[in-house]
């Protein structure tokens, strides 16, 4: 790979995971750079990052996952990276699959590649609950309905984008639960989006973002965002 690749690793209260995640990246895939975005963690994350000299940006105030990831895209833009990959700071993602999701972009087959847990059931050891599947299916259905593209894992946080996508996301990225909405935006603007099967693990330590209570609200917000976006699709077309 001659492309400059950046892993964007958003971290909020990940003191138990972040060092292990970064070391894994350094060991298994030393050619790629990473930047940890510390999203105003209340625990010891910042100290862990400083002491171990891990490349990081410290947000001066908590922004939520969307704002944190967008900061990563801005960093990628400023430092002229060719490919930016979103990568969770909690150890769910497997760094071996970075090359897998980069491949379609390097070959210029796609602008954006999502690492999917559901594309090939055998690859993934990720255990999915009924509710999770239901939610995922509803979002997939809505995206299919409006943008005629089947996305098997719209909530995946393991995604790679090329230079054009980096520019797009650096200037505009949704804030609360951004994965499905940003995918829909890319489809709307005519970017080529593809998926590759990846393995995801269950979280090793720490607490997950999404709980049962918030997931219903999540569904409503995501659906609304995608639907509103497509109803007014003519109005905010990009240059």
């Amino acid at each position, binding site marked *: 790979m001659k492309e400059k690749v950046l892993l964007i690793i958003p971290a909020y209260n990940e003191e138990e995971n972040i060092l292990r995640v970064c070391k894994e990246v350094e060991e298994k895939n030393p050619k790629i750079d990473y930047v940890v975005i510390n999203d105003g963690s209340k625990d010891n994350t910042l100290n862990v990052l400083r002491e171990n000299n891990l490349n990081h*940006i*410290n*947000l*001066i*105030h908590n*922004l939520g996952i969307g704002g944190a990831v967008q*900061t990563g895209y801005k960093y990628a833009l*400023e430092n002229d990276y060719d490919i930016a990959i979103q990568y969770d700071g909690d150890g769910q993602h497997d760094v071996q699959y970075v090359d897998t999701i980069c491949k379609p972009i390097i070959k210029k087959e796609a602008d954006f590649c999502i690492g999917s847990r559901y594309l090939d059931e055998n690859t993934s050891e990720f255990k999915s609950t009924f509710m999770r599947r239901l939610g995922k299916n509803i979002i997939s259905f809505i995206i299919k309905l409006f943008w005629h593209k089947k996305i098997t894992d719209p909530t995946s946080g393991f995604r790679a984008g090329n230079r054009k996508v980096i520019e797009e996301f650096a200037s505009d990225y949704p804030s609360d639960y951004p994965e499905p909405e940003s995918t829909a935006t890319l489809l709307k603007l005519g970017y080529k989006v593809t998926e590759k099967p990846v393995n995801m693990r269950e979280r090793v330590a720490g607490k997950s973002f999404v709980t049962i209570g918030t997931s219903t609200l999540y569904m409503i917000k995501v659906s609304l965002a995608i639907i509103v976006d497509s109803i007014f699709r003519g109005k905010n077309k990009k240059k």
Partner: protein
Amino acid sequence: MSLTLRIALIVITLIYMFLILKSIRNKKISVSFSIFWLITGVALIICVLVPQMIEWISNKLGFATPSNMIFCITIFMAFYLIFNLTIILSKENQKSKLLVQEVSLLKKKVENLEEKINESKKS
């Protein structure tokens, strides 16, 4: 409306408008926001001075009683105001997000530069 009630209402409204003007002077509220509140004050005084006008309008519009009309107008205005505030709030959110991001990126750059300078000093 009894004379005492009228006088009381006018005094209260005048105090209300005085407070608005004072907060403009103290720069607690921008002039553009205060216009809305000043207009409500003026409208209140007019209502107190010529209550017949309110009765006439509410009759023409078909409200059962003038107070119904007053409540209706007040509620609509309150909704409009709250909606406007949520728009402003969202805009401010966008701005502060941008600021946090840019400042954090700048801090990162400064740190990197400092490191480089320190390294070159050593060597």
